[in-house]
């Protein structure tokens, strides 16, 4: 049985709950999940320069937190991801209309986000389909979600003193080549095939749990959690 995320409070409930600490943490989860797709979106769809896009993303999440933009989300109208993208579009439009620079030196808090890393990712892309902004933002969200789950898996394996488990997963499932098999990975990492089988079994399950955990932080409520799990993973989940 797949364990589900421990918290049963949706992101909207956490944002609207009234407890400043819970709200701050919820916003942190949201920003962590969405800043990277937002940055790539502004760089490629809006064609903003790297430093302008960086500041726009910082400003957007900061202002959204201060003004409570995202709490106004209405689940009956669109997915939360779409709502957030539309908010981002309007935010950037307003910035440009007002002929403001996106740089907002006066912001009280700057989020510790790895923009140079996100910029390097753009440089690694062979081609980008910019035809459908919503599709682009969705794909970037999935990419960021899987990236976060992968990073969480690596950290968890390290913390538990089982780095080989992650190495097997990384070698076999994340970066395989035409020759990759259980046997080649076993030889490469000096393991038995049975160990590779067991490590993959454990890491795949953990990876799926982590995806669902992180996904829970990106959606507004249980209903959307189910819909996104279905769309992104083809899984029917029961929150």
């Amino acid at each position, binding site marked *: 049985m*797949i364990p589900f995320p421990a918290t049963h409070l949706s992101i909207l409930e956490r944002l609207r709950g009234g407890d400043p600490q819970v709200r701050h943490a919820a916003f942190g989860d949201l920003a962590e999940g969405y800043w990277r797709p937002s940055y790539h979106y502004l760089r490629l769809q809006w064609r903003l320069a790297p430093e302008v896009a960086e500041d726009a993303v910082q400003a957007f999440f900061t202002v959204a937190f201060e003004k409570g933009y995202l709490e106004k989300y209405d689940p009956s109208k669109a997915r939360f991801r779409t709502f957030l993208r539309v908010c981002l579009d309007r935010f950037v439009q307003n910035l440009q209309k007002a002929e403001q620079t996106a740089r907002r030196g006066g912001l009280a808090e700057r989020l510790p986000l790895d923009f140079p890393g996100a910029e390097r990712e753009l440089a690694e892309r062979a081609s980008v389909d910019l035809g459908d902004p919503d599709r682009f933002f969705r794909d970037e969200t*999935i990419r960021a979600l899987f990236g976060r789950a992968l990073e969480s898996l690596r950290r968890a394996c390290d913390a538990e003193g089982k780095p080989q488990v992650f190495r097997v997963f990384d070698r076999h499932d994340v970066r395989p080549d035409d020759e990759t098999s259980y046997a080649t990975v076993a030889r490469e990492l000096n393991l038995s095939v049975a160990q590779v089988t067991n490590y993959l079994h454990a890491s*795949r399950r953990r990876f799926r749990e982590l995806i669902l955990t992180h996904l829970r932080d990106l959606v507004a409520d249980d209903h959307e959690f189910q819909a996104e799990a279905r769309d992104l993973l*083809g899984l029917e989940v029961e929150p």
Partner: protein
Amino acid sequence: MTWLSNEAVDRLRDVATRPELPGDRYVILRPLGRGGMGRVYVARDNVLDREVALKVSNAPRASTALDERLKQEARVLAALEHPGIVPVHDSGVLDDGRVFYVMKLVRGRTLTEHAGDLTSEAARLAVFERVTDAVAFAHSAGVVHRDLKPANVMVGAFGEVLVLDWGVARRLDQSSDAEPAGTRLGTVGFMAPEQSRGDAASAGPSADVYALGALLHWLLRGETPPRRLRAIAGQCLAASPADRYPDASALAADLARYRQGAPVSALRESALERGWHWVRRHQAVILLVLAYLVMRALFAFARRP
């Protein structure tokens, strides 16, 4: 954070949903397809040393409606031993609670892909009759398919015809509580009017007859079929279930009559038409009798004093 290419994302999505099979009998080889209820993989059966198809529920928890439906599909298939229906070999539950079952791996093309190769009416009707026979068998066993369409018919390399995807099939002897009013099951274009209205629970064998009529219509598209065949398709496609063939067996019987040149129940013909069909159906005998009579007449004429 690790940069993931599109290929890596696709691979990880597959990994995240790939079933972890208990034991070492089956090993997943590759994905084969995905539907609303589950995913189908090509797997190797290490005990019998053969490739099989393995269908796994999309629902990651036991006892969900989807799991129940997949179990139901496996049970339905297991009960329907017929050359036109995919046999089930095994079933079970994954460690994460998802239900799976193992069935024959059908190698071939769907009727959607194969139809272009059926160049004559006789070839198309031959495939259609095989489909009708399989559905008739299911009806005789109290099972309604409810989603018949070209994509759910597989034509194998040796001409075998199999009806697939019994995922929304219903056993007529079981309660339909799981399908509240408003549930729409089936595919637009092949769905009976009662299914379109969301009355899936009451869709009986005549709903399959409607889908078979739509399938026949689809197979004969672009042609002007004979009047009696049009009448057969028309009776299948009647808006009211009461005006259709009651089940696929009745349709199969009318198709057999059509193939033999006999009058079909779907068309009330004039005495002249019936006579003409009778003549065509027995033309060899009639010719022999006529030849005999002519010979007798000639003989009698020759012997006349």
